[in-house]
């Protein structure tokens, strides 16, 4: 079979192979484009993820500080509760003592000084005046009623002094409670500031992580597209491989023909160069090359050794 016949035979297949290779080239271009887009998406995603990490660290810092402040508030509230309980107890004691004081004042019906004067006046009267027995009996009764009232008035005074003292204690406790409430408000404001900062960052984090997720999804989609295209390339390569296998006997023969033709051509060029050499003509580099490649005996027999030496000396000159 001539090379024209072979080429005619394998021509359509070669065209198919060529067309498929062009197809692969186009697909590779698309893959490169997709890879470039994927790289940009990956960089954006990673950048966003890095930003997210920084913001998450900041948010954690604010949250931890807020929690620390909230713990301080809890402790201060506990302390305030203790003082409030104490204040309640004191208030209860004050109320109890006030009730008792009021009861005694009601019973005494006068200040101890006034009652004491009256008592002394009545004692003096009963012990010094010439009185009828009935008057003495009345005065006797009155003196010991006054005595009881004086005792009540004195107890009421003592209770009043205690009440005043307890009011002072209560005032001290209230001052402490106010001081603690002030501290709690101050820390609560700071805690709220930290909470708002943390919330602000979590909102940023949601937004940025959403964007990062979108980029990640787009990246996965791109990878999917790239994989699909690679599968296509593999399938086409497989087709090409099959086609090449189909035409392999023809191409082998064609290569053999081309090799023979090339050898003949080299032989011809070598013969021409040999002729030039015998005639003592100057050899070109191509001539020399033809002699080396196309004449197998050029370097093996004596004649050839001689020819080679001539050619070499000419070449050197």
């Amino acid at each position: 079979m001539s090379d024209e016949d072979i080429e005619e035979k394998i021509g359509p297949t070669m065209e198919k192979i060529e067309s498929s290779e062009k197809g692969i080239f186009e697909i590779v271009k698309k893959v490169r484009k997709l890879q470039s887009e994927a790289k940009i998406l990956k960089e954006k995603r990673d950048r966003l993820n890095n930003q997210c990490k920084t913001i998450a660290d900041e948010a954690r810092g604010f949250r931890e500080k807020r929690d620390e402040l909230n713990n301080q508030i809890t402790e201060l509230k506990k302390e305030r509760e203790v003082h409030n309980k104490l204040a309640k107890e004191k208030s209860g004691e004050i109320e109890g003592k006030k009730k008792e004081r009021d009861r005694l004042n009601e019973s005494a019906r006068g200040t101890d000084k006034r009652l004491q004067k009256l008592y002394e006046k009545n004692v003096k009267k009963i012990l010094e005046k010439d009185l009828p027995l009935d008057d003495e009996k009345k005065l006797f009764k009155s003196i010991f009623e006054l005595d009881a009232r004086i005792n009540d008035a004195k107890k009421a005074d003592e209770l009043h002094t205690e009440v005043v003292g307890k009011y002072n204690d209560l005032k001290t406790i209230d001052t402490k409670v106010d001081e603690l409430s002030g501290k709690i408000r101050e820390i609560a404001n700071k805690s709220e500031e930290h909470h708002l900062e943390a919330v602000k960052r979590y909102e940023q984090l949601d937004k940025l992580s959403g964007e990062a997720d979108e980029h990640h999804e787009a990246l996965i989609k791109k990878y999917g597209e790239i994989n699909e295209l690679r599968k296509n390339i593999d399938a086409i390569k497989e087709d090409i491989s099959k086609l090449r296998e189909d035409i392999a006997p023809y191409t082998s023969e064609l290569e053999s023909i081309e090799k023979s033709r090339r050898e003949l051509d080299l032989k011809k060029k070598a013969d021409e160069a040999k002729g030039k050499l015998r005639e003592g003509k100057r050899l070109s580099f191509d001539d020399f090359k033809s002699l080396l490649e196309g004449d197998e005996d050029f370097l093996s027999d004596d004649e050839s050794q001689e020819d080679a030496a001539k050619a070499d000396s000419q070449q050197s000159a």
Partner: protein
Amino acid sequence: MEEQEPVMEEITPRQLVERLIEKHDRFISDYENSVEGAKRLHILREKKDQLEHWVADGGGEMFEKQFQATVKELADLEKSMISTELSQAQMTARLDDHKGAKKYWVKKLEEMGQ
């Protein structure tokens, strides 16, 4: 510093009764003396009036001396008596009242126990 008035020491019912009994004893003694004095007072007043009349009539130095002695005795007696206004009967009635009162307070003291 505010000056405090001295406060009378608190007295117990028993102490008061005891002191009331003492008071009645004192009044009983005074009224007893006064009842006796009242009889003498009447006599001395009459004597003084009589001597005053005699002195005014020029009775002499002896009446004058007696008059002065009577006036002094009368003044001393009046001074020693619990009342010069009350009659003997009234003072006797008062004496009885004090005795009755003392009896009451003694009984009261007994009721109080030791």
